[in-house]
């Protein structure tokens, strides 16, 4: 574990909320992005991220020093996000149409300057289909895929976060890619 994290964690365990605050500052953006990648909506992602830090703080004494704090925090975030997804499905919240404008706006801003009009439309559609296809994956497949491709985690790191074997992670990713391939029909 990075020395700084180790020292801050030690102080936080002794009741120093300031020390934990420094850890929060360090990881708050990554946690928010991870939450968003799993729940696909920033309002829910914000709540998930905040809850994750609160859970991490209340469970500091359960953290084992041999693991990385970031890995442990990611695990909490993944579990909290999946709980939120399940709750969302149960309550049958937002439809896909509600979430589309947010994605479309971003890609319009990001892609407009460098691509032709035809390419902009194509990219937007492709990413929208990717996002939709990700939502149809199983929880494990989605988690493994998001961690690998959106957060550049290795199979080993993903295995630690998900609490499973590395070979299991590879199977999840293999199946995820297969399912995504079926859902995203490539015309090019």
């Amino acid at each position, binding site marked *: 574990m990075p020395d700084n994290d180790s020292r801050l964690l030690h102080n936080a365990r002794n009741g120093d909320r*300031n020390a934990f605050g420094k850890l929060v500052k360090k990881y708050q953006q990554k946690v928010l992005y991870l939450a968003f990648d799993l729940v696909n909506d920033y309002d829910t992602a*914000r709540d998930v991220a905040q809850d994750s830090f609160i859970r991490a703080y209340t469970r500091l004494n359960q953290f084992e020093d041999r693991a990385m704090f970031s890995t442990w925090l990611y695990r909490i975030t993944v579990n909290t996000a999946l709980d939120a997804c399940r709750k969302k499905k149960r309550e049958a919240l937002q439809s896909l149409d509600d979430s589309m404008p947010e994605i479309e706006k*971003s890609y319009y801003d990001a892609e407009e300057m460098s691509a032709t009009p035809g390419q902009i439309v194509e990219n937007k559609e492709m990413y929208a289909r990717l996002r939709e296809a990700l939502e149809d994956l199983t929880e494990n497949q989605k988690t493994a895929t998001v961690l690998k491709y959106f957060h550049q985690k290795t199979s080993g790191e993903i295995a630690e976060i998900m609490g499973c074997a590395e070979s299991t992670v590879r199977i999840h990713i293999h199946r995820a890619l297969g399912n995504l391939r079926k859902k995203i029909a490539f015309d090019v």
Partner: protein
Amino acid sequence: MKTCEYRKKLSDYIDDALPTAEKRELELHLAGCRNCALELEEINKIAALMQNYTRPEPSLEVLYSYHTRLEKLFPVHTFAERLRERLADFRQRLFDWNPAIVRLAGSAVLLIIGIFIGRLMFYEPEKVLITDQPRDLVVLNLNADDLKMVADYFIKSEILLLAIKNTPDGESLQPTELDFNQQLARDLLSSTTQVQQKAALINDQQISVFLNQIEFLLLQIANTDEQEIKNSFIQLRQTIRERKLIDESENLQKILKDMI
């Protein structure tokens, strides 16, 4: 069937995670199998799509509420901390300049403080007339209803703290009791911001600090699930005991009662 066996290895092949011998075997197979080659091409496209994925950025509103909330729950670099750091820095620089003069100056300061304390101890202040008139609440920009709201908040939070404190360690909370506690915590949380705004007008540091501590506890209570009850509540009870929050709540209620 040989083809199915090779398909399972395609994602590892993309990640360059296959041993050399297996990689060569797969490449030989791909040269002769159109289905696997096509599947590999499509998987490559999916992987490239995901690697190039740019997630949308959150709105300013989301970012602001997110950062503000976390800053409130887990503050960093409070004013007191900054002041302490600057004083420590200033002290070190003085000391580096001339240790002897600094020591002499320090002794002089201590002497002056000693004389001041001595005067306080042996000096009788003039008696101040205490009238029956209530404090001038207009000066505080608060009315009696506002103060009652803050006091009411303290009473309810004290009830919640007592409920948690009085459940013996080792005993699980009944689901109905947990529901009650969580509902009370959520009700209190919904009015926390308003109460904090009113309390800020009272300009009493003790009240503000206490409210922040209570808010943090309320979030923990509201977010506990049945599986975590025992551990979470043991920790909460410890926090309530160590920080003497119930005593603090009673003291502050007395202060507010005097103001009303």
